[in-house]
């Protein structure tokens, strides 16, 4: 089980790095997906260790949530592209101060 959790951890930190580095909004959303996937992997590993269905059910919920989030997020990305004519995340800093 440790290897499974280790894999999840590595994938998660890779996703985090990608989130912090990339400036394109689509890439940000993709790295979010990576992180969510890694978390789901950890759940399933834990569920397999305890021989229970709870881990997989948790993964199902995470999946549903990710789907909803992607839908709304991509719609927002399209809208932002229409408004600001670029997908640079740093341009969306009007709430500073």
């Amino acid at each position: 089980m440790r290897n499974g959790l280790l894999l999840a951890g590595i994938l998660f930190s890779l996703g985090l790095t990608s989130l912090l580095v990339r400036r394109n909004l689509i890439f940000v959303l993709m790295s979010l997906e990576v992180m969510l996937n890694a978390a789901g992997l950890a759940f399933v590993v834990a569920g397999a260790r305890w021989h229970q269905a709870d881990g997989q059910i948790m993964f199902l919920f995470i999946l549903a949530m990710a789907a909803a989030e992607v839908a709304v997020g991509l719609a927002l990305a399209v809208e932002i592209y229409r408004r600001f004519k670029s997908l640079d995340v740093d341009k969306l800093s009007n709430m500073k101060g």
Partner: protein
Amino acid sequence: MLGLLWLIPALPFASALVLMLSGSRFPRKAATALGVGSIGISAVVTILVAASFFTAPPPDHSYTQLLWTWINVGGFNPEIALRLDALSLVMVLVVTFVGFLIHVYSAEFMMEDEGHSRFFAYMNLFVASMITLLLGDNLLLLMLGWEGVGLCSYLLIGFWYREPANGHAARKAFVVTRVGDTLMLIGLLLLFTQLGTLQIHDLMQRASERWPAGSGYAVAAALLLLGGAVGKSAQLPLQVWLPDAMAGPTPTSALIHAATMVTAGVYLIARTHVLFSLAPAAQLAVALVGAGTLLLAGCSALTQPDIKRALAYSTVSQIGYMFLALGVGAWQAALFHFFTHAFFKALLFLGAGVIINALHDEHNIFKMGGLRKELPVAFWTFLIAGCSLAGLPFFTAGFFSKDLIIWEAWSADHGHPGFWIAGMVGALLTSLYTFRLIFRVFFGPLGTPVTKRPGYTMTIPLAVLALFSFGAGYLKEPLLGFLHSALPATIEARTGGMTEAGSEAVAAVVFLVGLYLAYLFHLRKRSLAEAAVSNPVGSLLHRWWFADWGFDWVYDKVFVLPFIWAAQINKSDFIDAFYTGVARLADLFYRGLSRTESGRLRWYAAGVAVGSVVFLAMVLFR
């Protein structure tokens, strides 16, 4: 019937409260009716109480109505109690009656003003406070009324607050009377710590028992109370506020600064006369203050071109007469002069108001003239009041009262020929400046034309007051006899070659001399007046007297400018630095923290990551 005593201050209080809370939401007529009516009913109640007092005097000629206990702390328990005796009854009668007439007058005077209900609220509050002052059983309640009238005076002087000069005048009045109030408060504290009570009757009794005549405490307490009286009554050296207080509306000047508030000092000294009798030094001080003021103010009144300022100085001068009377021990004479003075001075002010209104806000008497035919009611009432002020023999009230004072200044126990001479010179000055006003305003060629004539609501009070200015003198014997129950009789000590009749004759001659001089300078040959002012000595005197003998200048240099200088250099002292330091610290934090809010997504995500790293570290390596 005497039980209705509490209504006399309560009705104006209630009316003031209602007017202040509802304000301009009342229609004009209703607010006027409420403001005037409350004083009217109060006056009626006063007359009923007075009638009951006359016909069936209560034991010891005084009636106390206890309303409730104000404070009850460790032996200090002043009460809200109203005490009625001859002294307070006379004064309350005058205040409510003259007050009622002035309110009726101001119903028309303030009709078009936008601060209409505010005016009546303040005036009612003033009357209520004044009556509280007069009827107060203990010095604390008296102080409450004292402060109340000071407040209302401030509010009413600065009534037209949009004009900054009015605000300055109101502040000046308040600050100067504050000086007096502080002295009075110290006097109250002295009396309380030494004698253990503030109830006036007990206070006077204990003082006469415990303090020998001429003791230091008595002198100190009396002088401190004199300080308070001097402030409120605008005597030397605190007389500087009254001429500037003429910035307020004319009914205010008539009520507050002629008939009532400025006589509060006289009332205070009369009330605590036992204390002053125990301290001859203080009583002498009262007389000196009175004599000095009446001469000083008389000279200043002679040089004023503004009709209201001239009348203000005249008020200061006449109260000087009352102080002189108190100082020589002529208690009833002082009250009698207060009685008559209230009528004719209020009338003079109301008449001046009519003139100013009619000439569309013209205050300068040198621009007026020939109003004898244009405003007949104003002319005749002003003439009667002026003659009363100057002391026309036998036909006016002022003659009887002022003459009594001048005679007592000679003959009373503490009297002195010097005071008599001062009184006579003062009478000459009074006659001179009064007729200067009359000749300049009403006689001669027409100056500013008349644009508005007064209606009945303004002229009827004038007529009633004129009647009293004329006839109140005949009440001399009954009034003095009545006051005898509250104030000791004046001890006649010397006659030294003069009789009362002789003194009156001299006074009549002085009156005529003043009348003739005024006629000469201000009607017959007006060029003489200009000549008197333009020669070197004359112009110097004129400027000096016009500036109130330089008191304003002295106060400015000695008190005001150093204070402003000290405030300026102390503008950012270390106490301020503490407060601004707090603000600067907050600003520093703001600047620092606002930099963490860059608005960038990746920055926030990094923040979350760092936070989770730190948190995990704390959990792992605890």
